[in-house]
């Protein structure tokens, strides 16, 4: 093994990605990847080994996602369903707050329209915070399969948003409606981030890597 290969480390984010999906306290999968990375780096070069490692990490995360579902389908489905219902309730709260605020201070908002626009933007942030909360709750319920449950819920919301936007485009013929998808996908992303936060707090192996 060359001296460079001996000290070179595999991509930290790829390792972090795999650790998000492994069973807590099971380091054998990352150990296998590490061992093969070292061997490849000395035989075929660091660049080749890094590309191989990333490819393996992504495929492994996908396999572990499926495995997580197969290992506990009912409890994972229950966590996802609970998250779906919770999201339906929690995501209405910012809108209710906006409604109360506009009704109570109608005179103020009518004379400060710019401030009202800022309030509307704040609602979007409110939705993202609500989704973070939902993601965290789902991850807490799906212990050991935090990412499986939160990613499934996020994929459901992404699909719903996608179908809704396509339906809108088909009905109105306005392609510009698709740009709204980026906003709609911010909430599912926040759900996944909520899952990552809980997973990271639970398992020291998934501490966010520093560059």
């Amino acid at each position, binding site marked *: 093994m060359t001296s460079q290969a001996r000290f070179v480390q595999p991509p930290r984010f790829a390792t972090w990605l795999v650790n998000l999906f492994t069973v807590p306290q099971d*380091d*054998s*999968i*990352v*150990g*296998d990847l590490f061992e093969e990375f070292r061997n490849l780096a000395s035989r075929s070069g660091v660049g080749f080994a890094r590309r191989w490692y990333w490819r393996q990490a992504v495929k492994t995360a996908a396999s572990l996602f499926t495995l997580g579902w197969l290992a506990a389908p009912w409890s994972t489905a229950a966590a996802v369903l609970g998250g779906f219902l919770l999201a339906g309730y929690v995501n209405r709260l910012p809108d209710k707050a906006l409604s109360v605020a506009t009704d109570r201070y109608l005179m103020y908002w009518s004379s400060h329209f710019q401030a009202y626009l800022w309030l509307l933007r704040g609602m979007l942030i409110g939705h993202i915070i609500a989704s973070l909360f939902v993601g965290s709750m789902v991850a807490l319920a799906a212990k050991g399969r935090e990412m499986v449950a939160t990613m499934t819920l996020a994929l459901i919301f992404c699909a719903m948003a996608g179908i809704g936007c396509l339906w809108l485009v088909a009905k109105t013929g306005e392609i510009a409606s698709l740009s709204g998808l980026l906003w709609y996908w911010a909430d599912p992303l926040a759900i996944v981030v909520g899952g990552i936060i809980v997973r990271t707090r639970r398992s020291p192996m998934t501490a966010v890597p520093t560059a």
Partner: protein
Amino acid sequence: MAGRDYLGEFEHIIMLALLRLEDRAYGVTVRQEIELRTQREVSIGAVYATLDRLEKKGYVKSRRSDPTPERGGRSKRFFRVTAQGVTAVNQIQRALSSMTEGLGMIGSYS
């Protein structure tokens, strides 16, 4: 054995790799053995997902080794085929032999 307990294609390949490797069978060696003999790239995640499934079926048992420095202080998970697993492999081998018997050169059908 019920039909649903038959080994799938990848399960079958993994079982044969474990039988070949004997007491050297862990994630890295299993993955490399399959790549070497089947010429197809296999992810370590797919290997573990299948091994976990086989362990649940009772065809495979695993044990952990002590952490080693060449693995960054991480342990290895060794696998071995159980008696029930050997029976399952024999059953699928017999079924395949029976199905291919008298077909001559399989390559001529491709």
